[in-house]
C-alpha cells in the first residue's frame, strides 16, 4: 500500500544539488591529490561517489534526516536553497541567483496573503 521508495536509499534519485556538491567534492579531491602527490592517478568518479557516500545504510539515514529537515522547512514555507542554486547553475548559468538571505525573504513574503494572492496558502480552520 505505502510506497516508501522516496525514503529508501536503494531507489534514491540523486537531485541536482547532490550531483553538484558531489562533483565539487570530486574536483577538490582531484586537485588536492595532484597538489600533494603529483605522480598518482586519482580514482574514477564512480568509485569516489561510492566511497564518499559511505555505506548504503548510513547514506539512507542521512538522506532521511535531510528530508525531515526539508519537510519542516517547507511546512513554514521555506524552500530548498541548495536546490535553487543547483537549478540556477544548471539552467541559467548567466543569471545571478538570489543570495541565501534574499531567497529566504522571498519565501517569507510568498507564504502570506498579499497583492494578487489573497487566499494565502493555509487553512484558517
Amino acid at each position, binding site marked *: *500500500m505505502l510506497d516508501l521508495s*522516496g*525514503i529508501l536509499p536503494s531507489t534514491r534519485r540523486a537531485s541536482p544539488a547532490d550531483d553538484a556538491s558531489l562533483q565539487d567534492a570530486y574536483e577538490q579531491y582531484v586537485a588536492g591529490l595532484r597538489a600533494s602527490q603529483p605522480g598518482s592517478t586519482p580514482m574514477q568518479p564512480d568509485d569516489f561517489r561510492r566511497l564518499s557516500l559511505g555505506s548504503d545504510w548510513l547514506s539512507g539515514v542521512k538522506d532521511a534526516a535531510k*528530508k525531515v*529537515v*526539508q*519537510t*519542516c*522547512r*517547507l*511546512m*513554514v*514555507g*521555506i*524552500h*530548498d*536553497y541548495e*536546490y*535553487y*542554486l*543547483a*537549478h*540556477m547553475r544548471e*539552467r541559467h548559468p548567466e543569471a545571478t541567483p538570489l543570495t*541565501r*538571505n534574499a*531567497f*529566504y*525573504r*522571498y*519565501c*517569507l*513574503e*510568498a*507564504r*502570506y*496573503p*498579499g*497583492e494578487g*494572492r*489573497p*487566499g*494565502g*496558502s*493555509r*487553512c*484558517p*480552520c
Partner: protein
Amino acid sequence: MNNLKQWVIWLAVTLVGAGSFAMLALSRGEQVNAVWLVLAAIACYSIAYRFYSKFIAERVFELDDTRLTPAQRRNDGLDYVPTNRWVLFGHHFAAIAGAGPLVGPILAAQMGFLPGTIWILVGVMLAGAVQDFLVLFISSRRDGRSLGEIAKQELGPLTGIIVMIGVLGVMIIILSALALVVVKALAESPWGVFSIAATIPIAIFMGVYMRFIRPGRIAEVSVIGFVLMMLGIIYGENVAASPTWGPLLTLTGPQLTLALVAYGFIASVLPVWLLLAPRDYLSTFLKIGVIAGLGIGILFSMPELKMPALTRFIDGSGPVFAGQLFPFLFITIACGACSGFHALVASGTTPKLIEKESHMRLIGYGSMLCESAVAIMALICASVLDPGIYFAMNAPAAVIGSTVQSASEVINGWGFVITPEMLTQIAKDVGEHSILSRAGGAPTFAVGMSHIIAEIFNSRAMMGFWYHFAILFEALFILTAVDAGTRACRFMVQDTVGIVVPGLARSTSWFGNLVGTAVAVSSWGFFVYQGVTDPLGGINTLWPLFGIGNQMLASMALLLGTVVLFKMKKQHYAWVTVLPTVWLFITSMTAGWQKIFHESPAIGFLATANKFKAAIADGTVLAPAKSIEDMGRIVFNNQINAVLCGFFMLVAVVMLISTIIHIRKALGQAHPTVHEVGGPAAEGARA
C-alpha cells in the same frame, strides 16, 4: 499467490474494522475503550486509501506520470519546484490542519461519540478527501491556478466572482468563530492570558533575530521561542497568583474581545516578518508536535470512553448547540470530515510543487485522511472526560447557572452523575477558578488532553501545566489564523471593491491598507462581540453559521469538479463527486433553512428576532438583555445572522444553477472541452 496474500490481508483489515465498529456500537451501557475507535478509524482509512483513492486516481482522473506537472514545466527553483512526495505530504498536511477539527467534534460529542465518529469516517472517505484530491488534480492540470481563477475559467466570470464573495463571507465567519474560541478559553483566566500575551514579545524577538541577527535559522530560533514559551506557561502560574498582576490579567469576555480586535488590527498591518512569520513557525511546529504526541499518548494510555455512544440530545434539545442530529451534526463537524477551505489550500502552493501526477493520491487524499484522524483524536479527548464534566464545560450559563451547585443539579437532572466537589476539584487540578460554561472546544480539548497525559504518568500534579499548554497551543494557532486571515480578508475586500471601482483594487497606499484592514477587523469583530455578549454562549450561533458556510464552500468546489469531469467526458464517473455534493447540499441547505426560519427561538434567527421584537412592543425586557437598547441590538444581530445565512444559501444555489448550465453544454459536445494545460500531446522539453 501474491494476489491471495493481498486478499487475506485486506479481508483481515476489513474484519478488524467491522469488529471495532461492532464494539463501539453494541456495547450499550458499559464503557468502551478508545482503542476500538482508533482501530475502526485505521481500518477505514486503509481501505479507503488502498481501494477508493486508487480507483479515483486510475479510473476517474487517469493520472499520468508522463504528463508534465506545473513544477516540471515551469521549474524555477522558487515557486515551482518538483518536490519529494513525502516532503510535500508533510507540507500539505501542515497547511490543511488547523483548529477546526479540534472544535467541531468536541461540540458534536454532546450527541455521544458514535454519530460523530461515523460522520468523520464516512464523510472523509467519500466527501472530504475526494474534494481535496479533486481540487489538487484540477489545479495541477491548470498550472496551479487558484480556485477562483479556475471557477472563472470553467464556469464564467460571474460565477468566479460569486465564489470569491462566498469565500470572503465564510472567511469572516471562521475568523469570528475562532476568535470567540480564544475569548472563551481566556476569559477570567489570568494564567492563560499571561502565557498567550507573552508570545507576542517572544515572536517579535524571534522576528528581529531572524531578520537581522541570523537570517533563515528556523530550527534555532524556533527552539529558542519554544523554550521561552514554556517558561511563560510555567511562570504564568506565579504571575496569575500575584496580587498585583493576577487581577490585572483577569479579563472579562468583552474586554478580551476588544483586546483581540486591537491586536488583529495592529498585527495585520505590521510587516509579516515581525510578528506573523515567527508566530507561524511556533504554531506550525507546536501543532505537528501536539498531534503526534497526542496520537502516541492515546495509544499508550488506552483510555476508556466515558461518554455514552448516544445521548438523549440527538433529539435536538442539546445544551451545546441546538438542533437535531440531522442536519446539525453534519455541519458542526465540518473540518474533520469535509472542509471547503481545503479547496483554497489545494489550489495554492501544493500543486506547484508536485513532482509526478501519481503523487497527488498520497498528497491530496492521504493528507485529508490524516486531518480526519486529528478530528478522531479530538473526539476521544472529549469522550474520555466524565460526561458531567463535559456538559459543565460546554453548556452555557443560561442553562446551568454560574455556580458549581446549580450546574451539578441541572446536569444530574439530565442523567449524568456529577457533584459540585468534582467540578471544583477539576478546576483546581488545571489551575483555573472555574471551568463552567467554557464552550468552544479548546478548554475541553485541553482538559481531555491533560487527563490522558495524567493517566500515562499516573499523576495529576502536572495537569495545570498541560492544560495551559493545550490552551496555548490552540490560542497560538488561532491568533496566527486571525492575523493571516485578516490580511487575506483585506485583499479580498480590495479585490471585490475593485470589481466595482477598478481604481481601488490595487491600492498599496497606507491609507488603503488601513481602511481595508479596518473593514476586515470590524466585520469579524462585530460577530465576536455579538457572540461574547450572547447568554447562550455565542458558539451556539457562530459555529453552525461557519459550518453551513464551510460545507457550502465544499459543495461548490465539488460542483466545480463535477463540471470538470463532465467537460473531460468522464460523466459515467461523475457519481464520485455528485454523491458527496448532493449530501452536503441537502445537509447545509436544510441547516441553513432551519437556522433562518425554524419556529423555535433556540434554533431560528428570525424566531429569536421576532420574540424580542414582540417583547419590545410590549415594553418588557427579556433576560440576557438588561435594557430596551440591548433588546434592539439582539433583534438586529439575529437579523444580520439570518441575512448572512441566506447569503451563503443564495451563493450555493447560484453555483448549482451555473453548474447545471455548464453540464448541459458539456453533454452537447462530442469532445472534451476542459481548459487543461500541457496534455501528453503538448509535451515539450523541460523548461
